[in-house]
C-alpha cells in the first residue's frame, strides 16, 4: 500500500469517527422529544419500561382528543397567539425605532443611553421580578382582559438584544445614502421608514423569530402575575395540565407536543435568519 492510500484510509476512518460522534450527540439532544411524541400516540400499556419503546404501543389519537376536551387548550393557544402577535410586533417597533438614533444621529446623551441599555445585560437585578409584579398591580393591568395580555407583554417589549442588533444593522448602512436623503429634505421619520427599515429587513426578521420563540416559551411570568388562568399562554397552561393530570403522562405528553409544534415549524423555516441574529449579537 502506498502512502497516498494510507492517508486516504486514515482520513475516512476519521470521518467515520466524526459522524459517529455527531450521531451520538444528536441522539442525546433529540431523544427526549422522540420519547414524548411516541408516548403521546401510545394507547395502552406501561410507558416506563426497560427497554424504552421505539414505537407507540397500539397507536391512537385519543390522548390528543382527551386533552382538547378536558383542558382549555384552544383557549391557551389563542392566548399564546395574541401574546406573540402583539409582543413581536411591539418589540420590533421599539427596537427599530430606538436603534436608529443610536446608530445614525448625533445628540447629547447618546453614548450614555447606549451604555445604560447594554449594562442591563450584566447588571444583576434579582429583585426585578418582585418590583415588576408590584408595578403591574399598581398600574391596574389585571382588571381587564386586554390588560392581562398587556401585563404579560409589556415587561419584555423593550429588548436590549433587539436594540443592539438594530443599531448594528443601521451602522452598516452607508453614510452617503443618508446624507443624500437629508440634503433632499427628507425627514428623519421618512428616512427611517423608507430607507432604514427596508435595508435592515433580514435583521428585523431574525429579531422577530428570536422574540417569537421568547414569547411563545415564557411561562413563569404569567404564572406569577395572572390570577385568572384563562389568560394563560400555552406554556403556562401546560404546567397547569401537569398539575391536574400528573398520573396521565400520555395526555400531558400530547399537550407537550402541541406546545412544541409551532416553535419547531417557525424555527425550521426561519433558522437561517435566527442563527444570523444570534451571531450578530456577539460580533461587534
Amino acid at each position, binding site marked *: 500500500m502506498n502512502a497516498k492510500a494510507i492517508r486516504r484510509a486514515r482520513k475516512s476512518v476519521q470521518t467515520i469517527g466524526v459522524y459517529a460522534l455527531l450521531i451520538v450527540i444528536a441522539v442525546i439532544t433529540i431523544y427526549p422529544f422522540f*420519547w414524548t411524541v411516541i408516548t403521546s400516540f401510545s394507547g395502552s400499556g406501561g410507558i416506563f419500561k426497560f427497554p424504552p419503546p421505539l414505537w407507540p404501543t397500539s397507536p391512537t389519537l385519543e390522548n390528543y382528543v382527551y386533552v382538547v376536551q378536558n383542558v382549555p387548550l384552544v383557549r391557551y393557544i389563542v392566548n399564546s397567539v395574541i401574546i406573540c402577535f402583539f409582543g413581536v410586533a411591539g418589540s420590533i417597533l421599539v427596537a427599530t425605532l430606538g436603534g*436608529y438614533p443610536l446608530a445614525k444621529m448625533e445628540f447629547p446623551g447618546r453614548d450614555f443611553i447606549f451604555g445604560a441599555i447594554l449594562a442591563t445585560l450584566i447588571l444583576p437585578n*434579582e*429583585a426585578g421580578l418582585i418590583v415588576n409584579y408590584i408595578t403591574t398591580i399598581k398600574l391596574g393591568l389585571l382588571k381587564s382582559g386586554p390588560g392581562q395580555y398587556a401585563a404579560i407583554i409589556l415587561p419584555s417589549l423593550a429588548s436590549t438584544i433587539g*436594540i443592539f442588533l438594530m443599531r448594528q444593522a443601521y451602522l452598516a448602512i452607508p453614510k452617503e445614502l443618508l446624507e443624500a436623503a437629508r440634503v433632499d429634505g427628507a425627514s428623519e421619520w421618512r428616512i427611517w421608514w423608507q430607507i432604514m427599515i427596508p435595508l435592515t429587513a433580514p435583521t428585523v426578521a431574525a429579531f422577530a423569530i428570536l422574540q417569537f420563540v421568547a414569547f411563545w416559551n415564557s*411561562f413563569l411570568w404569567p404564572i406569577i402575575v395572572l390570577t385568572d388562568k384563562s389568560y394563560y399562554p400555552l406554556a403556562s397552561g401546560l404546567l397547569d395540565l401537569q398539575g391536574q393530570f400528573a398520573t396521565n403522562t400520555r395526555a400531558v405528553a400530547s399537550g407537550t407536543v402541541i406546545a*412544541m409544534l409551532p416553535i419547531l415549524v417557525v424555527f425550521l423555516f426561519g433558522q437561517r435568519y435566527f442563527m444570523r441574529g444570534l451571531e450578530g449579537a456577539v460580533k461587534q
Partner: protein
Amino acid sequence: MKLRNTLIAYGFLLPALVLMGIYTFFPIVFGTYLGFTEYNVITPPRFVGLENFRTLLGESYFWSGLWNSIRYILVVPVIQLVSIAVAMLVNRQLPGIGGFRTAYYIPVVSSFAVVGLMWGWMYDQFGPVNFVLKTLGLVKNPTNLLLNPALALYAVMFVTLWKGIGYYMVLYLAGLQSIDRSYEEAALIDGANRWQVFWNVTLPLLRPIILICSLLSTISAIKVFEEIFVMTGGGPAGSTYTALYFIYSKAFQDFKYGEAAAAGLVVAVVSLFFSILNFKYTRGGQIS
C-alpha cells in the same frame, strides 16, 4: 436646528426609554430601596433599616439556597468546554452537517416548561436514563433521580447543560469562523501538533467570546430558577432549593416583599462578585 435634532432623536428613543425605565431601571432602584423596608403592596413601604438583612442571617433556607446557587456555577466550565468541543466538531464541511447543527439547537428553542416535563419523564424510576445507567452497569436498583437528594441538583444541572449547549455552540461557531485560518496554518507549518495549535492559537483567539459566554452562563447559573420550578420545586428535602427559589417563595407565597428584595440584593452582590472573577480569569477578554 440642533435642538430640533435632539428632540427627534429622543422621539425615536421614547418607547424604549419609557418601557426600560419602568421595567428595567426602576426595579433596580426601587428593588434596592425595598430591601430596607417592610412592604406588603397595600400600605406604603415602611423603612426598617437593616432589619431584613438581620432576619436573613437567621434563615437557614436562604443560606442553603444561596449555596446551591453557587454550586450551580459548576455548570459553567462544563457547558463552555462541551460547547467549544461541539462547535469545533460541527465547524467542518461535511454532508448533512447543517442538520446536526439544527438538531443540537432544538433544545435551545424549547420552553423550560416543555423541557422540564420531558426530563421529568426521562429521569423516572423506569425511564430511559435509568435504562441506560442500568445497561451500563452504573446502577443496580434504579430510583427516580429527581427524588434522590444526593443527585437531584446534578440531574437538574444536566438539563441546563443539555438545553444550553446549542446556544453557546452557535456563538463559538461564529467565533471560530471569524478566526483567520492563516494563524493556525502558520503554526502547523512551524511543526506544532493539532493540540498545541488549539491550545496556543485557537483558544486565545476565542477569548473575547469565552468571556461573553462564561459571563452569561455564570449570571444565569446564579439566577437558576425555571428548571427547578418545573422539575423539583426545590425538593427533595431542599436539595435543589436555590437563592431565587427563596426570593420567589418569600415574595409570592409569604408576601414578605421587603425581605425578598433584601435577599435579592445579597444575590446581586454575589452575582457581581462572580462576574468580576470571570473578567479576571479570561483576562477581560483580551486576545493577547
